[in-house]
């Protein structure tokens, strides 16, 4: 019985560790007091609380922080986690705030949101159509198809589509590489060295380096696209709609490519015009 009691009183290992850490952190955050013997010796030479040592500018006031690394997480993982957490928290806060607001407002907002979503969808199909029409035209003229073109040469109005495809391909490749362990899936035949790239890709043995520059900021890499994508959805949609009409005599809301520039029968550019 007595032993049981003693055991119950004893803190668990995890508790002890947490406590030790808490004590450590608290001590680390506490500066040495002026009662410290060393302080007196330094005061003899004119040192006052808040001063720094030496003659350099911007000398340290505080000791360097002690950070104990507890796992093998790579550089940046911690802040990435924190960022995601913060985002989730912000989102939760936003939602909470919303629900408190008046219902009318809420409905209004919702309507707006739905409208925006609809516009996003329209934009997407407008882009798809523009790309398709463009490619059809290019094929007829026997020009290069956009597949082989560098991203930057694709019309900015639908360039994002091509970019997404590249990213998807890259993700897929990376996943594949991760899933198949290196040892088990690398080329096993001696003549592999002579194999051409196509064969390798076909055999799922594409060994292109998995480092690419895709994750660089869009801003640095493709400022034109970044600028376009930064426009409000309504504006982007507007640009697409106008482009389709002028270039291909096509109306998204009629879903029809008119034979001539008059586009007779189409009530107007916007969706409302088609109501």
């Amino acid at each position, binding site marked *: 019985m007595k032993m049981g009691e003693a055991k119950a009183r004893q803190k668990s290992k995890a508790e002890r560790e947490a406590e030790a850490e808490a*004590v450590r952190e608290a001590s680390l955050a506490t500066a040495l007091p002026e009662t410290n013997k060393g302080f007196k010796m330094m005061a003899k030479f004119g040192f006052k609380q808040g001063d720094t040592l030496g003659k350099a500018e911007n000398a340290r006031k505080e000791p*360097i922080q*002690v950070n104990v*690394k507890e796992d093998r997480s790579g550089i940046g993982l911690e802040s990435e986690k924190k960022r995601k957490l913060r985002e989730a928290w912000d989102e939760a806060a936003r939602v909470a705030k919303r629900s408190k607001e008046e219902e009318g407002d809420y409905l209004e907002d919702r309507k707006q949101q739905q409208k925006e979503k609809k516009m996003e969808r329209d934009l997407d199909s407008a882009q798809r159509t523009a790309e398709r029409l463009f490619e059809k035209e290019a094929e007829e003229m026997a020009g290069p198809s956009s597949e082989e073109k560098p991203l930057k040469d694709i019309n900015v109005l639908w360039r994002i589509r091509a970019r997404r495809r590249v990213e998807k391909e890259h993700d897929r490749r990376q996943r594949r590489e991760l899933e198949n362990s290196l040892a088990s899936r*690398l080329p096993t035949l001696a003549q592999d060295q002579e194999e051409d790239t196509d064969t390798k890709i076909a055999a799922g043995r594409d060994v292109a380096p998995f480092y690419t520059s895709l994750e660089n900021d869009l801003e640095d890499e493709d400022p034109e696209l970044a600028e376009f994508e930064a426009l409000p959805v309504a504006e982007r949609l507007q640009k697409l709609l106008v482009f389709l009409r002028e270039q291909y005599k096509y109306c998204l809301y009629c879903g029809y490519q008119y034979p001539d520039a008059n586009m007779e029968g189409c009530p107007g550019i916007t969706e409302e015009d088609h109501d």
Partner: protein
Amino acid sequence: MASKRELTSEDGNSSTKRAKMENGNGKQDAGGNPYLAHWNDDSNSKPLRVDPNGTSGWSTLYGGIALTNNRIEANSADALYNFKRHATTSKQASAAEDGPLNPFTGKSLSNRYMGILKKRRDLPVHKQRDEFLKLYQESQILVFVGETGSGKTTQIPQFVLFDDMPHKSAQMVACTQPRRVAAMSVAQRVAEEMDVELGEEVGYSIRFEDKTGPNTMLKYMTDGMLLREAMHDNNLTRYSTIILDEAHERTLATDILMGLLKEVVLRRKDLKLIIMSATLDATKFQKYFHNAPLLAVPGRTHPVEIFYTPAPERDYVEASLRTVLQIHATEDEGDILLFLTGEEEIEDACRKINLEAQDLVREDAAGPLVVYPLYGTLPPAQQQKIFSPAPPPTRPGGRPGRKVIVSTNIAETSLTIDGIVYVVDPGFSKQKVYNPRIRVESLLVSPISKASAQQRAGRAGRTRPGKCFRLYTEQAFKKELIEQTYPEVLRSNLASTVLELKKLGVEDLVHFDLMDPPAPETLMRALEELNYLACLDDEGELTVLGSLASQFPLDPALAVMLITSPEFYCSNEILSLTALLSVPQIFVRPAANRKRADEMKDLFAHPDGDHLTMLNVYHAFKSEEAQANPKQWCHDHFLSYRALQQADNVRMQLKRIMEREELELMSTSFENKKYYENIRRALVAGFFMQVAKREGNGKTYTTVKDEQNVLLHPSTVLGQDSEWVVYNEFVLTTKNYIRTVTSVKAEWLLDIAPNYYDIASFKKGEIRTALQRVATKIQRKEQEKGKR
């Protein structure tokens, strides 16, 4: 200026002796020594005086080669005769270098010398020899930037020799290195380049080892050694030029030396100072040294392409293994350098890479791969292996072989390995941290700095264009890494340094001009510790004990323990223990053989603690049985032969200092039951500030005064029933540990360190109550004694 070099006795490491001799027979000897005759500044008098009978003790030392001396003199005078100090040109120097006789020794130059000379002249620094000389001659202080591979460490000191000719004024050129190994190996190399024997014209001096002689004119040394010399010779009068090499590494000693030399150059206008750095951040040095001129020599480097990972890595070790294998399977020929943080991690990684690589080879998916670990505590012979060439293909025309080196950050700057084309950088290294608030000094895995990352990347471009794979995102590189690694002075306990500075005569430590002054609390804590150790009085003045302690190249606590040990009748044992605590871990515990290693350790275990256990090991090591074949004996007992040998050497050096300072060496008889107790008490005399008390009956201990919760390190031999322990180290990992512990008694604490154990100064709590209880008990006992 008394700048004659003293001829030293055989006891070359004793700097005080030298200092003492300065006004004595040193000058006289120099005059009588034909070797040194040409030191006389007045070279017109042609002092080719060879005393056939020899003077004083000289003939007995060098008489046997008196015949050659004639030649030496004549020839060395020829080669450098027309040289006007600080007005020479590279053309003159080249002519003298071409021989046929060695300008410094007069001996014929070997073929090997000629071969090396040709290669030396291809080094990047050589092209700027004239430019260097001009700046060197014009300015007292010079900042020299030479990237790795420029040849600065080996060539610049030689350039200086030809212009400074320190031997003519009985002085030397010093070139400091942050690491012992570098000091030794560079000295060896330069001795070969100059076609002289190591320890003669070119030598080195590192802690516990001095390889210089009366002829030495170029001395490579650790920065710590030069600092120690400065303690006895505040103006460093033995040197005409001081070169601080690898200053960018910002070691504690280099930083202190810079602060000191900044003052010394004002007092000694004849002293020249060269700060050498491998990074372009040298403007900071320039600014610090009153805008000294700067000369930069490009290294021989190739472009390095840098790759980042798309997303942060969940496990950097795993990611680095994956990357290494990926490189091996897909990239062109070229060796790989992977940076990890410590021995265990490195050994583990090597094993895993080996296994995976074998699979690859078996499937013929890649050529053969050899993996080498590299870290500081690895025996030199094994360190040397990293220089062996990559393995050949398994069959003719097969896939090329490759070597992988998995290293700590020692491969970042200090070691140059040719053939590296790929660098894998997870972005971490083990770095020392010190925090004065809880007095913890630990090695912690920390993110490296941007400067470090660049340095690592540069390692890929030594032989040809290379690639560096950073296992973090570019974003993380930009935002998370600090610009420069914190200099050591910001990450160290400064007790030792403060003692040295006091001994160096620096009164006002508050305003001592360091390049990066540490936080005031660091100095505060150091002063406090030294005061409790009675090395400084309450005014901050050096005490007799403090002055004595500064003679030892040891931490103040160790030095005080050693000095006071005769009072406990065990100075022989404490001397051994101090040596053992000054070398790397003596116990070997290979991952594959832990159980057996622990069993062997138990053979030596002393129930009262690790210090005593170490002492048992040392005594056993010195036994006749072990000495019959010490290497084998160590191997059988899972002990590090190297560490024990080193301890032996350290002990000898410390013993000399003790004898010089007239500290008595004695032992309590082993049969006396107080034998071990005396040692434990002596331990308290030095380490009373590193004591912990057990909490209740639990496993946890609390450190005295700082009140940190700690656990005994799992390696301890100590049982769980010790209420009070002294510890050698407070180690931070995911848990707080105290390592190398020995049990002591509270009575001793109160008795031996009453200032520190002034009960009134303790916070209310378990420790105070316990101490109070003991104090009352002692009082009562004394009262009883009084009554009787």
